């Protein structure tokens, strides 16, 4: 059964900073594994440890943000390595949707394939949403893929998502494997048209 995702509501967690790469989200040493199990505990591990050593606290460690479902980031989130371990770690920590100014495309594609919607908002709005959550960590955050909005308490922000991925979520087609398999005959035909597949015959 396809899982339709139209809205997600829960508390938020702000992770500030541009260009947060997937090595920071999950350091490479945790990629020495054959399943994604247990990655949630190591999300942002080195950033968290370094902040702790400086007497500060990473949002993923702050008591007030535990149980959050919506991660709010800034520009170029998830850049760098294609490792799906990064969104898997975030998801296993408890995140089910992400709001940011922009994403690396591979990270974004991984999130679609995992059923984690990623909405885009303006630079000013990402900062405003993060500030609202920091001021009131209990505030309810809703991402709405039909209205293309992020609602934080009584405030509403305009959000964007390309039409293709948006439709994938609202129709439950984000897990594309089934539909890709259904196209097997068309795949065979397409392969037959490619000179290198037919050995230039």
């Amino acid at each position, binding site marked *: 059964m396809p899982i339709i995702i139209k809205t997600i509501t829960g508390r938020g967690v702000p992770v*500030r*900073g*541009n*260009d947060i*790469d997937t090595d*920071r989200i999950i350091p*490479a*040493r945790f*990629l*020495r*594994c*054959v*399943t*994604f199990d247990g990655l949630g505990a190591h999300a942002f591990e*080195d*950033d968290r*440890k*370094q902040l702790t050593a400086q007497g500060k606290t990473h949002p993923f460690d702050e008591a007030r943000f535990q149980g959050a479902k919506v991660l709010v980031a800034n*520009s*170029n989130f998830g*850049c*760098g*390595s*294609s*490792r*799906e*371990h990064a969104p898997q770690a975030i998801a296993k920590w408890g995140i089910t949707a992400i709001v940011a100014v*922009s*994403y*690396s*495309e*591979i990270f974004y*594609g*991984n999130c679609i*394939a*995992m059923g984690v919607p990623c909405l885009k908002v303006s*630079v000013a709005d990402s900062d405003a949403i993060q500030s609202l959550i920091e001021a009131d960590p209990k505030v309810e955050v809703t991402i709405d893929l039909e209205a293309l909005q992020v609602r934080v308490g009584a405030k509403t922000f305009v959000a964007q998502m390309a*039409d*293709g*991925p948006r*439709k*994938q979520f609202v*129709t439950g*087609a984000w897990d*594309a*494997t089934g*539909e*890709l398999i259904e*196209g*097997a005959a*068309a*795949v065979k*035909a*397409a*392969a037959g048209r*490619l*000179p*290198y597949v037919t*050995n*230039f015959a």
Partner: protein
Amino acid sequence: MSKGTLFDKVWDLHTVRPLSSGQTQLFIGLHLIHEVTSPQAFAMLRERGLKVPYPERTVATVDHIVPTEDQARPYADTQAEEMMVHIARNCKEFGIRLYEPGSGKQGVVHIIAPEQGLTQPGMTVACGDSHTATHGAFGAIAFGIGTSQVRDVLATQTLSLGRMKVRKVQVDGKLNPGVYAKDVILHILRKLSAKGGTGFAYEFAGSTFAAMTMEERMTICNMAIEGGARCGYINPDETTFAYLKGREHAPSGANWDKAVAYWKSIASDTDAVYDDVKAFRAEDIAPTVTWGISPDHGVGVGESIPAKESFTQDDWATVEEAYQYMDVKAGQPIAGMKIDVAFIGSCTNGRISDLREAAKVITAHGGQVASHVKAFIVPGSEAVKKVAEAEGLDKVFLKHGFEWREAGCSMCLAMNPDKLQGRQVSASSSNRNFKGRQGSPSGRTLLMSPAMVAIAALEGKVADVRTVLK
């Protein structure tokens, strides 16, 4: 919207059908897999009872976790050993070719596929690795994917994707001595930023790229992803065809001419339309070194670390974080910055021409690796290692105090025993200077060309390679 570019032609040729969401079902001509991002994909196939309908279109190797010193099995790292066991079992079960150490064909996935002639113009290439962009050097549309998408390619030979825009990145003119492909791409990243290419495929065009060898073109396309462009490519030409001719998996005999005709047909038309164009002059590019924590934090070796005000205000926080992490100040010259480790290798710069250039610099300098520096050279593949040894390059390296290793990804991402310790500073020919990238959570990376790494190793600090190349 772009029209008549190589991207448009290859995309259209590989379009199977539109999906209900409006995304495109795209056929993948060459699927490459390695031990890190594939085990979960095979597990998903088993969970869902799926088969691999086109096993001959997937090729596997091992590179990320492979030790570059002691390769005796079982590996000391039991998790790495488990991953090796898994990929061998998975490939056997699903009928996929696997090039393991000792086969003569193992190496960094983005190095072995081109050297065996697997990567060809006009193909779509996907791999669970962001540096798949490398294969665009041949005029292929090549991009990195995640593990769920590896599952989709294995199960269907296709992906669900949205079309990208196309930006022409034009560089014309002749590079000055001591300026390499690595400097060109670091310069482009610096000018277009790490996120500037998001949503775009980069077409690298102009006389500078036309004059480059295939290996240099691979260095360029490899780092398109560091600029946010999921793929980068260069139109195929006689240089491309000459490289491919005679390689194991390249077309041969009567098929060769037909293949060349196809390859020529998919090149961008002279009147192609682009979504955007950016242009640079080769003469403006100097040997470039990164000083910060993003590959777009580059400066010419004669320059100083830039003030935050030279960046857009939105990036000031990141720039300040970079100063703090790297322990540098705006206005400080990059030349003279002390290094602890020198690494030559990776899918960016681990090919034979990179090693030849490093050897040339080392010989011209004539000195030994500085006493406080650990320097090591990791060939990108078993084939590269063999050629290097036949040419005696290994002897040059060893004589001057460099270590000579077995093929693998090594300290590019440090998933193997090659890691920085503590706050060490590395001069690295790899592609990413992210925080913690080279294995120590507080380690620091300066990206540069292999020639610049070689001179840094000998001098013990960032130095200008042009001083020995006169």
